[in-house]
C-alpha cells in the first residue's frame, strides 16, 4: 500500500482561526444536509472519491473531512480493510482544518488496531504539532528514528516543525542533509526550492529545480518555475535562460499561460537591452511577437461571450501594445 507521505505542511496556519472550531462545527452540523443527500451519491462513490484524492495527493482537506466523516460514521462496516487508510486520510485532513475532535477519534481507532505501529506514532506526532506541542511531537519522531533510522516520514515531520516555528535556516539545513541521502525525493526537492525562494536565495532555488527537471523532464511546471526563478535573478544571461525554459514549458504544455506570458516578457526585455547584437534583438522581437499573437488569440477565445472577460482581453491588448512601444 502506498505510504501516505503527504507534502510537508505547516500544520498551524490561518485555517485554524478562520474555521473557528467551537462555533463553526456546531452550526454546520445542524444546518447542513448530509453529503450523500446533497450530492446524491452512495457510499461507494464517496469511498472512491477519497481514494482518488489519496492517489492524487490533493490537499482539499475541507472536502475530505466532509465526505470522510460521513463515510466513517455511517458506513464504517461496509468499508472493510479500507477503513484504516481512510481513518489516516481523514485524520490528517481534520488536523488541517483544526478539527481536533475528529482527528482524535480517527487516531484512537488506529491506535487500537495498530498499537505498535510507527506509522500511527507519526500521526500522534502530527496531532501534537497541530496543538503546537512541538517538543512532545519531536520526542515521538526521535523515538521512531531510534528504532528505525531510515524512517523518512519522521525526518520530514521534524523538518516541518522547524518550518512551522519559522526556523527556515535550520529547516533548509536539515532538508539538505536529508536530500544527500534520498536524492530522488521530488517532494523534498520541491519543498527545498520553496524554502529558498522565500529566503530570496534564487541561485539555490534554481539548483533544486534543476534536480527536479532531471528527475522529471516532462513536467512543464518545473520548467516554468525554473524560468521564473531565472527571470527574477535578472541579468542578460539569466533572462536568456528564462526565455529558453519558458519556451520549453510551452512545448510540454502549450496551454501554460504563465509560460506564454513569461516568454513574451523575457524576449521583450532581451530585445530592449542595449547590450545585445542586432541579430539577437531581431530574434527576440520575433519570439515576443509570436507570444503576443498567441496571448491575444487565447484571450479572444476566452473572452467570447461574457462582458467580464472582455475586460481582461482589452487590458491584455493594451498592455501588449504599450510594452511594444517601450521596446522599439
Amino acid at each position, binding site marked *: 500500500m502506498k505510504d501516505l507521505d503527504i507534502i510537508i505542511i505547516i500544520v498551524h*496556519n490561518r485555517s485554524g482561526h478562520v*474555521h473557528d472550531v467551537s462555533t463553526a462545527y456546531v452550526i454546520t452540523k445542524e444546518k447542513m444536509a448530509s453529503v450523500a443527500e446533497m450530492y446524491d451519491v452512495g457510499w461507494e462513490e464517496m469511498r472512491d472519491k477519497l481514494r482518488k484524492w489519496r492517489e492524487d495527493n490533493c490537499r482539499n482537506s475541507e472536502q475530505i473531512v466532509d465526505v470522510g466523516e460521513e463515510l466513517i460514521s455511517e458506513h464504517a462496516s461496509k468499508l472493510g480493510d479500507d477503513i484504516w487508510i481512510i481513518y489516516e486520510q481523514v485524520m490528517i485532513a481534520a488536523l488541517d482544518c483544526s478539527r481536533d475532535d475528529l482527528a482524535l477519534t480517527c487516531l484512537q481507532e488506529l491506535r487500537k488496531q495498530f498499537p505498535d505501529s510507527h506509522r500511527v506514532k507519526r500521526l500522534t506526532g502530527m496531532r501534537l504539532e497541530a496543538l503546537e506541542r512541538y517538543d512532545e511531537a519531536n520526542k515521538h519522531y526521535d523515538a521512531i528514528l531510534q528504532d528505525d533510522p531510515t524512517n523518512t516520514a519522521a525526518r520530514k515531520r521534524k523538518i516541518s516543525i522547524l518550518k512551522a516555528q519559522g526556523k527556515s535556516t535550520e529547516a533548509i539545513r536539515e532538508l539538505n542533509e536529508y536530500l544527500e541521502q534520498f536524492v530522488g525525493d521530488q517532494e523534498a526537492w520541491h519543498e527545498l526550492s520553496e524554502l529558498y525562494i522565500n529566503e530570496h536565495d534564487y541561485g539555490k532555488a534554481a539548483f533544486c529545480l534543476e534536480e527536479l527537471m532531471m528527475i522529471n523532464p516532462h513536467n512543464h511546471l518545473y520548467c516554468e518555475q525554473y524560468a521564473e526563478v531565472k527571470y527574477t535573478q535578472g541579468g542578460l544571461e539569466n533572462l536568456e535562460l*528564462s526565455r529558453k525554459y519558458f519556451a520549453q514549458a510551452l512545448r510540454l504544455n502549450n496551454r501554460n499561460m504563465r509560460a506564454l506570458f513569461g516568454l513574451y516578457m523575457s524576449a521583450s526585455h532581451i530585445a530592449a537591452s542595449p547590450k545585445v547584437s542586432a541579430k539577437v534583438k531581431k530574434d527576440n522581437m520575433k519570439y515576443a511577437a509570436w507570444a503576443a499573437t498567441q496571448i491575444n488569440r487565447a484571450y479572444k477565445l476566452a473572452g467570447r461571450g461574457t462582458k*467580464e472577460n472582455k475586460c481582461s482581453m482589452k487590458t491584455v491588448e493594451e498592455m501588449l501594445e504599450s510594452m511594444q512601444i517601450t521596446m522599439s
Partner: protein
Amino acid sequence: MGEVELSCRAYVKMYLHACLFPRCSINGLLLSSSPTGGAVCVTDCVPLLHSHLPLAPITQLALTQVDVWCSQTQQRIVGYYQANACVSDNSPTPCALKIADKIAEQFDNAVLLMLDGSKMSPDYRVPPIVMYERKDSRWILKDKHTIMLRQWEETRAIASQMMESGDHTLLVDFDSHLDDITKDWTNQKLNTKIEELASPANGNI
C-alpha cells in the same frame, strides 16, 4: 500622516482571499476610485497571488495589467496587502516592502497592509489588519486612529456570512486567472454580491 479609509468591498475581498488560501501567503493590490488629496479611500482591491510571492515575472505582469485596467476605469493603485502563511509572524516580508516601494513611487500616500491571520476568527471584534505608511524611505506603523472602516460591524458580518456560505470560492485572484483565463480577476460577480448584502441605506460603500 494622512487618514486612510477602507471600504467594505476592499476589506471583504481581502478577507475572502485570505480564507480561500488559508495555508498560503497571499497578496494583492489596493485601489482607489476617489480623487487624490485628503484621505486615501481604498475603494477596491485586486487579489494577486497565493504562490511564489517573491518571484518577479507574474508580479510584474499583474502590476502592468492592473495599471492598464485602472487607467481604463478611473482608478489608481494606492497600496498593497499581504497575509503570511505562518500566523505567528505578520511583519512585512522583503518582497512586500519591494512592491510597496514601487507603488509609492507612483503614489505618495501609498499604504502597506498586513492581514493578521491569528485575529481572523469570526468572533474577533477588531479589524485584523496592521497598516504601514512611508516616511523617510522607511515603512512605519500607522497610527490606528488614522485608519477608518465605516460600518465595521456590518462589514465584518458580510465577510463572515460570505465565508460561511462558501462565497470565498467564487473569488478569483491573478494566479487562478492564469490557471484559467476565462475567470475574472476583477471579481465583478463578487462585487455585486457584496453590494447586495450591504444595507441599501449606506450610500458610500
